């Protein structure tokens, strides 16, 4: 009987896969693949407009609607937490903005108030989580319905829409994806929502990478005991994490309002899952310690690209749902592959090497 004789040299296929996965650019590569696939499919069967300036505007705008709250969620998830209340807190903020504008409050006052509301929602979560030591999942599951309830009280259980003349022009145009394609013949028309989201993304990226706070967030998410040992003020850091996330939720609320010009608290139910999905698809780990701004932004764009592509190809809603679900599962599987698991897959790939 002969001994098992496996190649000790690595299969190039395995190496290629691992190169992509380990380079942290996995989501970006995935985004390109998806864009290319949809472009091809659209040129074959669709109207051929998937890859156009206009659609880029639409996709980027709808990505930014998710990406902005997802920036906050990224910080939370890196710190090993989760925020299920992000969706309803977001629509609570949008509703608050609608009510304030409806009652003739100037946006100069209304927007800061809304940002404060968002921070307060986050701070409440953070305080309960770090002082009472309850798991974030449970705390935010509770606050999710609390924020929904508060929103419904404020809105009188219905949709609030301020008269159009009360909405400032910049807010009306914030999420506008209309003409022209280019200004002055060369400057691409990118929606303001996208530009502002990019600024916020850079801010968070710097915050996470270049500040003591950012390193503390990674440390807490990676190993809370170690963080404690290193003298990091864990309760304070956690409260800050959720408060900052609340700020981004509030900005997301303003975006949401600008997009549909009304506030309905119940529209936020389920939104938190889109936000979490963007972070996870972008390589964030729900067990904490890992995640990146680039990944999250890419994750949001992947989801937006899929939604847009499915619309362009007239793929019916049920199939679109299945595709989005599959992408999330694949993304999380990729996350496992990064860690070299499951072993059987790598063994199998290796055994098939020529």
């Amino acid at each position, binding site marked *: 009987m002969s001994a098992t004789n496996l190649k000790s040299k690595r299969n190039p296929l395995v190496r290629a896969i691992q190169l992509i996965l380990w380079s942290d650019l996995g989501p970006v590569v995935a985004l390109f693949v998806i864009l290319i696939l949809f472009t091809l499919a659209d040129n074959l069967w669709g109207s051929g407009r998937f890859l*156009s300036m206009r659609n880029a505007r639409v996709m980027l705008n709808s990505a930014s609607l998710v990406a902005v709250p997802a920036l906050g969620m990224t910080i939370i998830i890196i710190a090993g937490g989760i925020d299920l209340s992000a969706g309803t807190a977001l629509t609570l903020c949008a509703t608050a903005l609608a009510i304030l504008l409806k009652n003739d409050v100037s946006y100069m006052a209304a927007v800061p108030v809304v940002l404060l509301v968002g921070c307060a929602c986050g701070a409440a979560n953070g305080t309960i989580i770090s002082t009472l030591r309850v798991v974030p999942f449970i705390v935010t599951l509770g606050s999710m319905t609390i924020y929904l309830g508060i929103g419904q009280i404020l809105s009188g*259980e219905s949709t609030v*829409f301020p008269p159009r003349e009360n909405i400032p022009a910049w807010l009306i145009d914030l999420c506008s994806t*209309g003409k022209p394609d280019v200004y002055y013949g060369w400057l691409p028309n990118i929606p303001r929502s996208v530009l502002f989201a990019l600024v916020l993304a850079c801010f968070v990226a710097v915050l996470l990478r270049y500040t003591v706070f950012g390193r503390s967030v990674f440390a807490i998410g990676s190993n809370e005991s170690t963080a404690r040992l290193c003298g990091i003020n864990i309760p304070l850091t956690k409260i800050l994490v959720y408060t900052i996330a609340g700020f981004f939720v509030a900005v997301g609320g303003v975006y949401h309002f600008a997009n549909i010009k009304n506030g309905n608290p119940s529209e936020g139910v389920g939104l938190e899952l889109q936000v979490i999905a963007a972070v996870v698809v972008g390589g964030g780990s729900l067990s904490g310690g890992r995640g990146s701004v680039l990944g999250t932004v890419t994750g949001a764009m992947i989801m937006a690209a899929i939604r*847009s592509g499915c619309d362009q190809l007239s793929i019916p809603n049920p199939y679109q749902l299945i595709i989005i679900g599959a992408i999330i599962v694949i993304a999380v599987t990729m996350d496992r592959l990064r860690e070299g698991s499951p072993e059987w897959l790598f063994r199998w790939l290796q055994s098939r090497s020529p």
Partner: protein
Amino acid sequence: MPRRTLLLLSILLLVGCNTAKEQGSGSGAGSGKLRFAVVPKGTSHEFWKSVHFGAEKAAQELGNVEVVWKGPIKESDTASQVEVVKNMITQQVDGICLAPNHSQGLVDVVNEADDEGIPVVIFDSGLGEGAGYVSYVATDNYQGGKLAAKQMAYAIGEKGNVILLRYRAGSESTEQREQGFLDGISEYPDITVVSSDQYGEENASSAKAKVEQLLQVHGQSLNGIFAVCEPNANGTLEALRNTGHDKTVKFIAFDPSDSLIDAMKDGSCSGIVLQDPVQMGYMAVKTMAAHLKGEAPEKFISTGEYVATAENMEEERYQTLLKPKLFGE
């Protein structure tokens, strides 16, 4: 190394972007067939399948029209509907027939379509001021509400206490029904509206919970209840049965469903206000086609409203309205 590859890829994509765009603008008009996007409020209620049926029927009669059917899943999801319409604009369809699920939320995107040179026909539910659209094809919902009031008065003998269960704020069509009902009821001095400020919201279960609450408060002295749309009506019916009020409280619904038709047979429901969804989809597409031919359609086109009762429900005319044809059957 991978970074450089990515850079290369993005340049390729950008180049592709420009060429695809030029290709697109060239091929859109040349294909001969007109593509109409028909965007319902949502895709989960039967009502919209009948609209779909009507739209396809019109497309078939016209011959050179293709219907692109796409809508959000939930009727309350304004953000998704905005996105669907935006994507339809991107596709450069020849016309958009839209049932806006919010009177304000869709104004901007309809104007966006207008700017891009794509005409919009609104159906089922109206749109707020400042929106540039060709025509509005719908049931005269105000009239429908009035019909409901008349039937209610008849059912309860022109006196007693009634409840109006609203749908949601910002939904133009139901708000008009609600107004029509209140105006209609006010002609009967002996009828009191004990509650008209509660919203059933988007689905049957939320409506059911709301009605159960209302019955707690007003159940003893209540004579009638009017639910302004199908999900609301189904929830209301369940609530009435659950609490045993289905024989004492007269119930008027708006839009039919199988359970409501059964309820009318056993007397739990005293009337269903009917609209003609098939006609609505049909007229929306026809109006769009007419507009593109250069004709000037009416600004408002009514598709009619009717009341089915236990007495007339077996008549063929009412049968087709009670069980309208569905797309895909």
